[in-house]
């Protein structure tokens, strides 16, 4: 427990240091406009990282996620722009395709016993090639010139200020209730529970942060829709991993696959299902990332899988599987998003951006392996 707190403190300090550096270097960094953009970028990175988290929990990996983000967004773009499908139908079709493709990859990993590293590395190349074929290596807008549709609004819709505040209030109340009832239940069952004061302090601080976030967002255009999507995905993944048998099985499989088999867990089905969920999350990320750029272009999604892996590992997820939390992944994604956003603001050249991403990825994995050793 103390070690987990220590880790959270380290992540917090690292985040403060990185953010402080960018704020100092570029006054725009803390501007409402940039923070609004940062919120959208964080949402995209974090949603994908939360999907990657489910895969890594089982001890597997998905290197095809970034290519998939481009491909699934591209399929939707082409259906809307070239085939003139209504946007909801196009999104639904691309979403279904993603889930199907990821289920197949999951089946290859568990039924054919192929290393997930290789299956998804193959996926990375294949999806990229298919993506370029689908968009004919051209730029395909998410909505016909000058118009708006559901697809484009995924990242251009902002909650009205009152709705943002109401949502923050509702979220804070629900969360406070959940925390207090969880702690009192722990006390009832004789577990070590934190003091009511500490719980109150935590709830207070997080609610304050939520209101501050909404107020800052309202100074620009309001809370962007991707932030709502992220909140929903975080809630979903958090419930899934903490409160469902399926989530327990993910931890069990990653912790000790053989013991999981003996314990009567249908290991193959669970891992395939995790890949299916990853497909759904790749689709959501693909729609948001493509809409954020306004169009499918050949580079959409590039290297996003590595940012997602880095976010997981920074957030305390073990690459060996069986360990990690959704909250940690969210923190890791925040560091990655701040880093990428800040470097863009400072007009860091692409060369150095690549090097910085590589260094962060390597450092985070080194932290992971030195922790498990």
């Amino acid at each position, binding site marked *: 427990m103390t070690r987990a707190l220590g880790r959270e403190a380290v992540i917090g300090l690292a985040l403060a240091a990185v953010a402080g550096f960018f704020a100092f270097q570029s006054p725009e960094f803390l501007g409402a406009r940039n923070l609004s953009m940062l919120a959208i970028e964080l949402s995209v990175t974090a949603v994908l990282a939360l999907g990657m988290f489910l895969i890594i929990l089982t001890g597997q990996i998905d290197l095809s996620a970034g290519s998939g983000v481009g491909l699934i967004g591209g399929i939707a773009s082409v259906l809307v722009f070239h085939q003139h499908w209504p946007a909801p139908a196009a999104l639904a079709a691309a979403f279904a395709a993603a889930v199907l493709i990821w289920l197949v990859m999951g089946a290859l990993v568990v039924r054919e016993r192929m290393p997930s590293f290789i299956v998804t590395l193959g996926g990375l190349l294949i999806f990229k090639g298919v993506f370029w074929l689908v968009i004919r290596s051209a730029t395909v807008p998410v909505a016909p010139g000058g118009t708006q549709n559901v697809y484009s609004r995924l990242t251009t819709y902002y909650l009205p200020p009152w709705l943002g505040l109401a949502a923050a209030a509702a979220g804070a109340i629900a969360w406070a209730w959940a925390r207090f009832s969880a702690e009192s239940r722990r006390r009832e069952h004789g*577990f070590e529970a934190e003091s009511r004061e500490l719980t109150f302090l935590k709830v207070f601080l997080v609610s304050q942060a939520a209101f501050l976030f909404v107020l800052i967002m309202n100074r620009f255009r309001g809370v962007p829709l991707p932030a709502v999507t992220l909140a929903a995905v975080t809630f979903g993944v958090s419930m899934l991993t903490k409160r469902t048998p399926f989530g327990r099985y993910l*931890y*069990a499989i990653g*912790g*000790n696959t*053989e013991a999981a*088999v*003996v314990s*009567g867990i249908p290991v193959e089905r669970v891992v395939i299902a995790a890949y299916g969920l990853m497909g759904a999350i790749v689709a959501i990320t693909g729609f948001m990332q493509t809409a954020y750029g306004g169009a499918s272009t050949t580079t959409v999604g590039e290297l996003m899988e590595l940012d997602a892996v880095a976010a997981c590992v920074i957030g305390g997820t073990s690459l060996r599987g*069986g360990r990690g939390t959704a909250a940690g992944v969210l923190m890791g994604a925040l560091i990655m998003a701040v880093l990428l956003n800040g470097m863009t603001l400072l007009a860091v050249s692409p060369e150095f951006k690549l090097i910085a991403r590589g260094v962060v990825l390597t450092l985070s994995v080194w932290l992971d392996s030195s922790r498990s050793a």
Partner: protein
Amino acid sequence: MAPVLRAKRITKRFPGVVALSDVSFDLEPGEIHSICGENGAGKSTLIKLLSGIHPHGGYEGALEVDGREARFASTADAEAAGIAVIYQELALVPEMTSAENIFLGAEPVRGGLIDHDAMLKGARELLDRFGLKLDPNVRTGDLGVGQQQLLEILKALRKESRVLILDEPTAALAEHEVGLLLDILRDLKRRGIACVYISHKLDEVFAISDRITVLRDGSTVGTWDAKAASKAEVIRHMVGREIKDFFPRRAKTPGEPRLRTEGLTVAAPDGRVLVRDVGFEVRAGEVLGIGGLLGAGRSELLLHLAGVWGERTKGRVLLDGKPLEAGRPWETIGRGLVLVTEDRRRWGLFAEQGVGFNLSLSSLKGLLIDEDAELSANREMSAALKVKAASLETPVGGLSGGNQQKVVIGRALGTDPKVVLLDEPTRGIDVGAKLEVYEIVNRLTDAGKAVVLVSSELPELLGMSDRIVMLHEGAVGGTFDRGAAQEALLAAAMGAA
């Protein structure tokens, strides 16, 4: 002439256990000297001492080579003194040729590159010297197990070894390969190479040995001339002890048949048949003991029944009179058959996770976990089994062996089973925890559950079972009642019944 290898009054302690106590053993030049003993008698520890795996300084007593004290700091020192060990599990690289394997780690080099010609020539010379028909160019993985075993021996001889230690060398060999191996050992003997031979198969031991030393519970029982001793005598010495009133078995009248196997034959993924034509029945309220030597197929049988291992090539399994499919562990548990595995770390524990996670994993139900119900069930189970842990959130990896075992048993019992398979449930746990496990077995049968208990310890098997099946090389070697003699069980396990 001084013995080529001698262990003088060796005592080796591990934390909490004395593995060897005042053991003496000597090996004359050109002699074949067998070591016999039950599982856990101290044979492996002795080999590890002789081969430098347990280095000098970690034991009391002395090792001598050619009459001079030897202090092995590592296996390399033992090798330099001419001692080579050939383990049951082969250490060959299947993708390399025979010649490459023989010279692995000592490749002849010319100009910085491997000299393949010299290697081939060296391999041929060795093969000719021992009259072996083996192509040094063939891929090792394509050789039979017996030929691979010979290759291991050649590897040892290449190092100019004077002492060969063979640990269960025939466990994986077919009949004719065993004959070939024994012929080669006799040939080596003529060339003055001495041999320490460890085998559970007494026929082989008597066919090849000059002398036989029996170990029991870490001590030397005695050394006999093979020609003067009889098999029955050696078995008696191996067993030796009396059954003490240590096993609180409360037998009761058995009820309905629960689990039944008929002609069950199971093959490993590599095709080897490890369980042959096994038939037995367990009734409600009854403990069926299953014994046998290492490699007799006991664990494989249990893993297969639980649906997690092996291909059923013949026969069938009935649970409550209805067929039980292989390979669907989650259904097997749902039908009321559950396994507590032998190797806790590998097959049982989620070491990083807490006691509660480990206890409830097999009995989670529904879409959302009812945390209150889960907590109370875990608390009840952990209290019933007397799990000693700071809290339900304490990671199980740090608990004692006995408490870990109770957690794994608790997970199995949480599924409310009708049949419980226990594989070596008391291995590696202290005496107090053993008694608690026996008490759990009693409570299970009191509650009308059927128990299958696998154990390597004959007293435990006799003390806790209502009936006993001894396995020998995957097949039933004999079925016994509670009052059977240990000698009879051991004879059945060794295929000498």
